[in-house]
């Protein structure tokens, strides 16, 4: 294979990079927020907040909070009464001058981490966040071992017995007995 650098690049390195890219994307997955493209928004018919900045903050928070009744949806997308309650509470807190983080903390204090779509980074969730990268690292290490072993025994993956036969045949022919041909 080392005689054909182009082919090696195509067959070995290109797929490796593709897989790498895929795993990197997956590694970021815990941070992705569904619905943040802004497609579905089930706000109340009358806007809760007059001020444009406040309304924008509320909108962002709504996408970050999970509707616990219909759990795949954010509070922004859900039509349930629970989502409505959360929206109103968040709107009230924005008007009272609380920060986004204070509002998130308020919700987590009552409902637990599950109400946030983006799981917090703490000792319990290190594995969730780091897992994909950890698996990638393990995969690379294993691959490294395999490649190093391959290199020691020669690029061609044939057994030692076959090596001997080849050497013997070449020796008969008067060649150098070198297994590089």
């Amino acid at each position, binding site marked *: 294979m080392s005689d054909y650098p182009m082919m090696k690049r195509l067959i070995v390195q290109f797929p490796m990079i593709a897989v790498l890219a895929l795993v990197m994307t997956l590694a970021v997955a815990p941070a992705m927020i569904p619905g943040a493209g802004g497609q579905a928004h089930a706000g109340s018919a009358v806007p809760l907040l007059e001020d444009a900045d406040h309304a924008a903050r509320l909108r962002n928070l709504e996408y970050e909070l999970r509707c616990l009744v219909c*759990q795949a949806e954010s509070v922004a997308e859900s039509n349930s009464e629970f989502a409505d309650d959360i929206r109103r*509470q968040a709107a009230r807190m924005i008007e009272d001058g609380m920060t986004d983080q204070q509002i998130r903390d308020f919700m987590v204090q*009552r409902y*637990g981490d*599950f109400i946030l779509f983006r799981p917090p980074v703490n000792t319990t969730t290190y594995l969730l966040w780091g897992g994909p990268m950890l698996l990638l690292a393990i995969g690379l290490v294993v691959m490294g071992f395999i490649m190093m072993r391959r290199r020691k025994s020669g690029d061609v993956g044939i057994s030692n017995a076959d090596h001997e036969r080849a050497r013997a045949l070449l020796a008969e022919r008067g060649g150098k007995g070198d297994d590089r041909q």
Partner: protein
Amino acid sequence: MTSLRYLIPLGVFLVISGFLAVGLFLNPGQIPSPLIGKPAPEFELQQLHDPRQVVTHRDMAGQVWMLNVFASWCVTCRHEHPLLVELNRHQVIPIVGLNYKDRREDAINWLRGTGNPYVAIGHDLDGRVGMDYGVYGTPETYIIDAQGIIRYKHIGPMSGDVLEKKILPMIRELQQS
């Protein structure tokens, strides 16, 4: 020895399958409460039957008590209500009702039909007290100890099985200490 190495991918697969299998039996509707082990949130609500009176978290201090979140519009509450009536009849534990996002008249009428197992009922019209307790559906039931700490939360209607296996033993244990 090399043959053992070939078992490693199989081993990894089995481990992952194990985790996935456990996941199949988990119920995402059962969200663990972060309030277990923490003091019961304070509240002060009008009593359902008499708005001139209030019921507060202080009323039950020194006793092991149960907080039951219910509403007349809640269908599954009907399943557990007879159990609550029984608990009250046998004086097992004082039960405080949290009437959640319900119209006063509707709740009073409903209780008249099903029986009233509560020593007191707080009328949580806008659901704010419920939110402080992390309520996201009905019915939900909390067991609170004599020091005012929440020790257990049950989501959904209680069954005879749950009462027997989890709740009654816990109540007995808390009442003895």
